[in-house]
């Protein structure tokens, strides 16, 4: 299935030509989980923090659905 991943913080710098308005189109297996998407994008360990779908926070073990737009953020602290 295909989903759209939008990257925030300094994550876009890893993808030359990244278009913030479009994000990345990513193909992942049906029933793949959030953690599978992160692994597919090479976002691992302390790189990855919060993930949200439609402004609702999802857990790394949650499954993704075809066509969703997934926002991926970096870990951040107080401002």
């Amino acid at each position: 299935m295909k989903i759209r991943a939008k990257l925030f913080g300094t994550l876009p710098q890893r993808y030359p030509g990244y278009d913030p308005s479009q994000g990345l189109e990513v193909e992942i297996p049906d029933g793949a989980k959030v953690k599978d998407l992160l692994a597919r994008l090479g976002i691992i360990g302390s790189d990855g923090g919060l993930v949200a779908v439609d402004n609702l926070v999802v857990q790394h073990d949650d499954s993704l659905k075809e066509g969703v737009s997934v926002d991926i953020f970096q870990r951040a602290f107080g401002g």
Partner: protein
Amino acid sequence: MQFIRVNMSEQTVKIENVPQDYVGLGGRGLTSIMINNEVPPTCDPLGSENKLIFAPGLLSGTSLVNTSRISIGAKSPLTGTIKESNAGGTVAAALGKLGITAIIVEGLAPQDKLFNLIIDQNGNAALQAANDFKGMRTYALVERLLQDHGEKNGVLCIGPAGEYQLASASIQTSDVDGRPCRAAGRGGLGAVMGAKGIKAIVISQKGKSPDAIADPESFKESAKVFAKAVKDHPFSGQMLGALGTAGLVSAVNSTGAFPSYNATKGVFEGWEKISGEFLAETIQKRGGQTTHMGCSQCIIRCSNVFVDEGGKYVTASLEYETIWSMGGMPGIDDLDVIARLDFLCDDIGIDTMNTGVAIGVAMDAGYKEFGDGQAAIELMEEISKGTEIGKVLGNGPAAVGKHFNHHRVPVVKGQSIAAYDPRGMQGNGVTYATSPMGADHTAGNLVGAYLGGMLNPLEAEGQVKASRKAQIAMASLDCTGLCMLAGAALAAPDVSEALLKMINAKLGTQLGADDIPALGIRVLKAELEFNRNAGFTSKDDRLAKFFYVEPLPPHNKVFVVTDEDLDSTFDFE
């Protein structure tokens, strides 16, 4: 190790050695313990019995990076509680290099008399009549002071809001470029400075008499470890330099915890137009500075310089909390308007957070339309002129709520919440409710735990414990002069050990790892004692009622931590 005691009733300045009781204290530890010892808790915050204390951190003025935070303390006219508000800029490092542990301002100047306190490169201090500066906004004021006294000075000052003694008035501090764009914004301490009759404190940056370091070699070695860790950390070493604290907009908004339209929504529709990513893109396109050194000895460079379409300076630095208070809360999705509002707050000398929320409450009450940026700018000018509505706004959201008889006022103990809704980040609600300072995110912010997936932000479980730990850690950190953003690196054991070694090397002590949280607990206990003696009880440690009964979209949650759990926040043992 010297105190400068300034008596404004008699206009005298006395320099004394730090009394034994206060040796080894700095920053918030010094201001809070001294206020608890020396200020009558029931006094009028704007009266002669209150004291206004300026204390650099224990490590300010040393070679360590990111140590130019100054703590300013007094009894607050906004909250009625003890208050410590800290700010960056240049003055903490300048005071540290002069070996000045604190400036303590006592008494009240005769009415309508204003003074500047000038501290030269030898640490000599004198009051100068400043009636000519009356009514000046801070940018013009600082420009003139630096012309008169030289560019190598740091300045602490108030604008018109402080002179009017408004409850949201800030004390502004100058950055490395000599702009008064850093603020001790919280708690209305600018009003205390105005009541004392001090317009500005000018501090030489040429001091060469810092307190001796007991073990310079050990200090130097640990300082290198700390600096490297700050640089290597993905947050302090990369993200903050690229996006500043504004990088939090998109993340917090996506958790549904970005209080918008006076905290009636947790997601702001126009967030992409005020995000850190868009801010950086806009600044870059216009030729401003996306990263910038705002504070002395800073290697993080979270600051920025926002310019207009013609490339002309508007403000520095546009930060997360201000983008929220002047953007999300009044529903304004235009960075140019937000930047203008930020500049006006600095120039008038008023807290961006309390003021943005006050405007949001006024809009929610129907006084102006949500999203009307021009109206917000005009309201700022009302504050500057000291008109009736301007004074209502300048006294903060609680005063606005009372004026318009409007119930939805997001404050605790009179101070506005910050850019994390307590229904979407429950633990920050615990901190807002219980902090001795009133609603204050810097007292114990759990956003890092939520964004890192370590704590569920929407459930009650674990929030009190996490807030307690964070409040103790922050009370300790606020003693050092270190920037909280550099504090992100302290999670690594070797880095926290390096900090402990530096404190021991500076003071010649043998403190152990447990002594650092013990210091934080000592500070919190002093603050809680002051508040109890001022008449505060556990019933004051509650959020505004609407947080318990109005669900916040999109999660549609209310604040669910019980009163009983809140009351256990400071069960230290």
